[in-house]
C-alpha cells in the first residue's frame, strides 16, 4: 500500500522532471515536492499525507476493536488503550478528515472558480508543511516518556494537568495541536480570499459550484472555531509549564475547558462534514443529469448551519450542572440545527427527481453518505434532548452517533470525491469493479461496526474492557467483525488509486459534468508517453482542460515555507523537550521568516497578474487587505476567547483582588496613552506615504517603533515586579494567571508588529513604497490598530474593574 501512495507522489512529478531536466532527476523530483507552491501539488500532498495519518489512526482503531471483541480481554493494557482511544480520535478528526477536505479545496476550488492558483501560493505551502510537522509532532508523542496524550480527544481537564498527566506526551500533543490550528488558520485565510477575490468572470457568488460553496462556509467555521482551540491550548500549556491555574482551579477548571473546547469542538464536527456534503451535492447532480434541486435554499441552509453551529455546543455539557435555562436553550438550538440539514437532505434527494441516475462508484459513495447521515443525524436528535442525554451521555450511543456522522457521512462523501476526481487528477480511469467492491464492503462493514452500538446505550465510552455479566459482549463482537471488514477494505481504495496511475486514459469530462473543473479548453497533451509507461510518465499533474488552468511547473518554488514551518514546529515541540530545542526551532523559524521577507523585499517571488474577475462583495478591497481583515477576524476570536475565559474566571472566583491592588492603575494609564499614541503615529506614517512623503513615513514608523518598545518595557517591568512577588514552586493564582497569559499573548502580537515595522522601514528606505503603492503600510496599520484596540479592552478589564 505504501508503494502505491509513494507512486502517487512520484506520478505527479512527471512534468517537473521534464522541465528541470538539467538537474539530477531524483533531486529535481524531491525539490519539486518539497518547495512547491502550486495549488494542485499542495492538494496532492495534502491528500497523500492525510492517507498516511488515516492509516496510523486506523491501526489504532483495529487495536481497540480487537481489545473489545470479547469481555475481559487483556490484549491492551489500560494506559495503552487510553492512548489509542485519544490519538485515534485526534488523528482521524484533525489530521485525516479535515485535511482531506482541505486537499480537495486546494486542488479544486481554484479550478471550479477559474483561478490560476490560490490567492497566496507560499501561504498554501506553509499551511501544508505546518500540517505535516504538527502530525509528526503528535505522532512523536507516542515515544516520549509517559506516552501520548491519553485523556480522550476532548482533553478534559484536569486530567490533562501536570498532576494527573505528568509525562511530556500531553505537552507535546498540545503543542502539535497548536501548530495544526495555526496551519488551519493560515490555510483558511488563503482559501477564503481565493473564493472571494479570484473568481473568473461569470462565476458570481450565488452561482459557485457546490463544492466551492460548501468549502466557503466551512472555511468560515475554520476561521472562527480554531482560535478558540489555540486559546485553550495556550492556557493548558501555561498551566503545565508555567504553573498557572486555569484548568486546575475550581473557578476555572473543567467547566472552563468544556466551554473553550466545545466552542471549537462542535463546529469542528461540521468542518469535517460540510466539504464532504459539497462533494456529495455535486456528484448527485452530475450522476442524475440534473441541476441541484433547491439550490438557493441549500445555500442559505448551509449558512444557517454555520451560524447555529456556534450556538449548540452546550449540549456536550448538559450534565455538568449548567442551569436549566441554558440546557433548554441549547436543546432548542440543537434541534433547530437539524432543520437546515433537512433542507440539505431534501435538496440531495430532490435532485434525483426525474433524473437519469447512474450508479457509478462516486454516486454509490455519495448516496451511502446521505443514507448514513440520515441515521447519524436522527440519532443526534436523541442527544440534543436534555432529558435523553442524561442516560446517553458518555455511552456507546454517542460513539455510534458521531461515527455515523463523521466516519460515515464525511468519509464516504470524501471517498466519493476521490473516485469522482481521480480521472481529473491523474488523467486516467480507476477500476469500477474494485470501486464498487470497496463501496459494498465499506457500507456493510461500517454499519456492522456502528449500528449495534446504538444498543449499547449503557456501556461507558473509552472503557478498556467489560465484564461478561454486562451482556455487552454480542454487540461488541459484531462491531469487531465489522471493523475487520471495514478497515482492511480501505486498502482497496489505496490499491485502486495506485492502479489508476496505469489505468486506461480518461476522457476530458468522463462524467458529463457541467462544473468548471471539467470544462474542456485544451485537449489532452499529446507529447506524453502512451499507456503502459507506468508511473511518472505522462499526464502530469492532472490534465489541463481549461485555458485558465496553469501548468504546474509555471508556479515558482520556494524553500521558505518548509523551513519556516519546521522551525515553528520544532520550537513548539521544544515546549516538551526544553529550552535548547525551543531556541533551535526559533533560529530555524527566523531563517524562514527572514528568507521570506528577503524574497519579498527583492521582489523575487512574483506570481503573474490575473485578469480581474468577479469580486463581489469585495471588488473595492485590495487582496492583501482582505486577507488581513480575514486574519484579524480569527484574531478577534482568539482574544475573545481569552477575555471570555477571564470573565468566566472572574465571575466564579470569589477572592478577586480590588482594582489597583494588583496592578498600578497609573502605570497602566501611561501605557495605554502610549499605545493610543502609537496608533496615531502609525496612521500619520500611512498618511505621509499616501502624500508621497517617504521620509515622513520612515520618521513616523520610527516613532511608532519607539513607542512600542516603551510600552513593552513598561509591561516588562510590571511582569518583573509580579514575578518577583510569586512564591517559588507554588501555583499562580487565577488573577495573575489570566493577566500573564492575556498580556503575554498581546505582548507577543506587539512584538510581531515591531518586526513588521523594521521590515517596513527597511523597505521604505529603498523606495519600496510610494503614493500609489502603500498597501503593506496600510495592512500594517490595520494590524497595529487591532492589537491596540485589544489593549483598550484589556486595560479596563485588568486594571480598572
Amino acid at each position, binding site marked *: 500500500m505504501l508503494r502505491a501512495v509513494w507512486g502517487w507522489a512520484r506520478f505527479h512529478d512527471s512534468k517537473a522532471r521534464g522541465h528541470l531536466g538539467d538537474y539530477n532527476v531524483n533531486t529535481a523530483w524531491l525539490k519539486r515536492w518539497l518547495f512547491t507552491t502550486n495549488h494542485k501539488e499542495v492538494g496532492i500532498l495534502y491528500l497523500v499525507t492525510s492517507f498516511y495519518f488515516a492509516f496510523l489512526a486506523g491501526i489504532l482503531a483495529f487495536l481497540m476493536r480487537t481489545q473489545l471483541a470479547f469481555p475481559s480481554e487483556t490484549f491492551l493494557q489500560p494506559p495503552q488503550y487510553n492512548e489509542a482511544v485519544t490519538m485515534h480520535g485526534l488523528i482521524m478528526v484533525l489530521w485525516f478528515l479535515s485535511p482531506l477536505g482541505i486537499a480537495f479545496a486546494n486542488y479544486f476550488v481554484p479550478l471550479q472558480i477559474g483561478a490560476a492558483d490560490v490567492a497566496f501560493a507560499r501561504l498554501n505551502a506553509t499551511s501544508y508543511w505546518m500540517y505535516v510537522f504538527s502530525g509528526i509532532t503528535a505522532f512523536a508523542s507516542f515515544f516520549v516518556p509517559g506516552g501520548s496524550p491519553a485523556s480522550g480527544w476532548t482533553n478534559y481537564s484536569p486530567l490533562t494537568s501536570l498532576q494527573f498527566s505528568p509525562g511530556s506526551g500531553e505537552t507535546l500533543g498540545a503543542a502539535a495541536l497548536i501548530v495544526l490550528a495555526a496551519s488551519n488558520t493560515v490555510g483558511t485565510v488563503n482559501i477564503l480570499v481565493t473564493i472571494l477575490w479570484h473568481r473568473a468572470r461569470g462565476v458570481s457568488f450565488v452561482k459557485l459550484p457546490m463544492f466551492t460553496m460548501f468549502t466557503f462556509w466551512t472555511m468560515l467555521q475554520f476561521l472562527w472555531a480554531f482560535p478558540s482551540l489555540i486559546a485553550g491550548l495556550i492556557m493548558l500549556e501555561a498551566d503545565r509549564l508555567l504553573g498557572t491555574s486555569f484548568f486546575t482551579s475550581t473557578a476555572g477548571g473543567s467547566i472552563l475547558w468544556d466551554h473553550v473546547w466545545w466552542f471549537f469542538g462542535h463546529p469542528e464536527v461540521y468542518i469535517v462534514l460540510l466539504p464532504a456534503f459539497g462533494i456529495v451535492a455535486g456528484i448527485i447532480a452530475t450522476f442524475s443529469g440534473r441541476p441541484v434541486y433547491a439550490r438557493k435554499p441549500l445555500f442559505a441552509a448551509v449558512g444557517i448551519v454555520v451560524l447555529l453551529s456556534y450556538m449548540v455546543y452546550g449540549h456536550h455539557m448538559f450534565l455538568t450542572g449548567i442551569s436549566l435555562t441554558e440546557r433548554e436553550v441549547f436543546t432548542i438550538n440543537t*434541534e433547530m440545527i437539524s432543520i437546515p440539514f433537512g433542507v440539505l437532505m431534501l435538496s440531495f434527494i430532490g435532485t434525483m427527481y426525474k*433524473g437519469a441516475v447512474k450508479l457509478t462508484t462516486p454516486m454509490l459513495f455519495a448516496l451511502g453518505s446521505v443514507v448514513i447521515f440520515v441515521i447519524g443525524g436522527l440519532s443526534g436528535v436523541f442527544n440534543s434532548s436534555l432529558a435523553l442525554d442524561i442516560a446517553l451521555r458518555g455511552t456507546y450511543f454517542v460513539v455510534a452517533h458521531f461515527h455515523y456522522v463523521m466516519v460515515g457521512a464525511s468519509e464516504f462523501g470524501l471517498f466519493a470525491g476521490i473516485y469522482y476526481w481521480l480521472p481529473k487528477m491523474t488523467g486516467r480511469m480507476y477500476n469500477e469493479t474494485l470501486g464498487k467492491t470497496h463501496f459494498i464492503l465499506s457500507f456493510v462493514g461500517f454499519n456492522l461496526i456502528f449500528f449495534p452500538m446504538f444498543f449499547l446505550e449503557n456501556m461507558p465510552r473509552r472503557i478498556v474492557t467489560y465484564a461478561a455479566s454486562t451482556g455487552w459482549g454480542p454487540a461488541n463482537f459484531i462491531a469487531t467483525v465489522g471493523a475487520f471488514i471495514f478497515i482492511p477494505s480501505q486498502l482497496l481504495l489505496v490499491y485502486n488509486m495506485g492502479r489508476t496511475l496505469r489505468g486506461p486514459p480518461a476522457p476530458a469530462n468522463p462524467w458529463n459534468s457541467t462544473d468548471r473543473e471539467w470544462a474542456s479548453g485544451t485537449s489532452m497533451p499529446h507529447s506524453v508517453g502512451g499507456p503502459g509507461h507506468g508511473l511518472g510518465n505522462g499526464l502530469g499533474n492532472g490534465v489541463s482542460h481549461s485555458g485558465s488552468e496553469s501548468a504546474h511547473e509555471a508556479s515558482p518554488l520556494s524553500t521558505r515555507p518548509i523551513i519556516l514551518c519546521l522551525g515553528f514546529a520544532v520550537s513548539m515541540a521544544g515546549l516538551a523537550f526544553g529550552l535548547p530545542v525551543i531556541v533551535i526551532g526559533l533560529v530555524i523559524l527566523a531563517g524562514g521568516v527572514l528568507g521570506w521577507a528577503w524574497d519579498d523585499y527583492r521582489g523575487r517571488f512574483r506570481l503573474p497578474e490575473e485578469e480581474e474577475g468577479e469580486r463581489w462583495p469585495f471588488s473595492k478591497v485590495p487582496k492583501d487587505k482582505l486577507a488581513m481583515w480575514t486574519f484579524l477576524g480569527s484574531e478577534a476570536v482568539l482574544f475573545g476567547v481569552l477575555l471570555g475565559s477571564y470573565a468566566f474566571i472572574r465571575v466564579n472566583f470569589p477572592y478577586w483582588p480590588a482594582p489597583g491592588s494588583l496592578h498600578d492603575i497609573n502605570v497602566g494609564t501611561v501605557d495605554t496613552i502610549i499605545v493610543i499614541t502609537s496608533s496615531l503615529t502609525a496612521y500619520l506614517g500611512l498618511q505621509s506615504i499616501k502624500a508621497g512623503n517617504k521620509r515622513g513615513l520612515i520618521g513616523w514608523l520610527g516613532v511608532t517603533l519607539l513607542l512600542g518598545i516603551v510600552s513593552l518595557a513598561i509591561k516588562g517591568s510590571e511582569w518583573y515586579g509580579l514575578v518577583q512577588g510569586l512564591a517559588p514552586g507554588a501555583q499562580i493564582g487565577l488573577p495573575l494567571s489570566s493577566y500573564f497569559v492575556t498580556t503575554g499573548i498581546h505582548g507577543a502580537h506587539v512584538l510581531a508588529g515591531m518586526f513588521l515595522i523594521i521590515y517596513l522601514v527597511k523597505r521604505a528606505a529603498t523606495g519600496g513604497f510610494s503614493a500609489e503603492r502603500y498597501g503593506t503600510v496600510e495592512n500594517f496599520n490595520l494590524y497595529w490598530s487591532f492589537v491596540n484596540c485589544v489593549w483598550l479592552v484589556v486595560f479596563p478589564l485588568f486594571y480598572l474593574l
Partner: protein
Amino acid sequence: MRSGRSVPPKLKSRPEGTKALLRRGLLAISAPTADTWQSLYNLYWVLAVAAGTITIGALVFFVTKYRARPSSGPAQQDEDGKVPIRTVLVIIIIMASVLAGAGYASFHAIGVYNNPPNGWNDPNALHVNVTGQRFSWSFNCTSGCGVPAVLTVPHNKIVIMNITSIDVFHSFGIPDLRVKADAIPGKYNLIWFQVSTAGTYRILCYELCGAGHAFMIAKLVVT
C-alpha cells in the same frame, strides 16, 4: 402487601443484552426516572424510525424509479433557478413541528429529573454525598449506607445524591435507573431516584478519568 425481599428472580440481576433491551421497553420500570426516560426514548425512536424510513425510502425509491437505463434518454431538463419555495417551506414546517413536539416532551421529562416528589431538601429522603476519586466512588450519608463501593438504600425511599469529585472529571451514572451527573472538582450536582423493587444495580463512571476508568464500578443495593 409485598415484602421488599420477595423479588421475582428475573429482576434481581438485569442483563443488558439485546434481548433484555427489547424486553425492557415493555416492562414496568421500577423507578420514576427510568420510567420517564424510557417512554421518552421510545417516543424518539418511533419518530426517528418514521423519519428515517421516509427519507431513506424516498432516496431508494428515486434511485430505482429514475435509474438510467440504456433505453431511456437523457434526464429531463427544466428551467434552472426556480426556487421550490413551497416544498422547502413544507419540509421546514413539518420538521419544526415534530421537533417542537419532541422538545416539549423532553422539557416535560426533565421536570421529573429536576423535581423530587418532596423537593431537594426533603427531610424524609436519604441524602447521600457521593465523591468520585480515581478510581472508586465513596458514599457518605448520616444514617450509614454501607461499605465502600456499595451503596445500600431501602426500596421506595427517595434518595437524593450530591455528587462531586476530588481529583478529575468523572461522571456518576446508574444506567438502569437512567440517572447520571458529572462529578467535577469543586462543583456539586444533585440527582435523585426512587426504586420500588429491590435488587442490585451497577454504578459506573462515564467520563474517561485515567487508567482505571473501566474499573471505577460501585454497586447499588436496594433492599
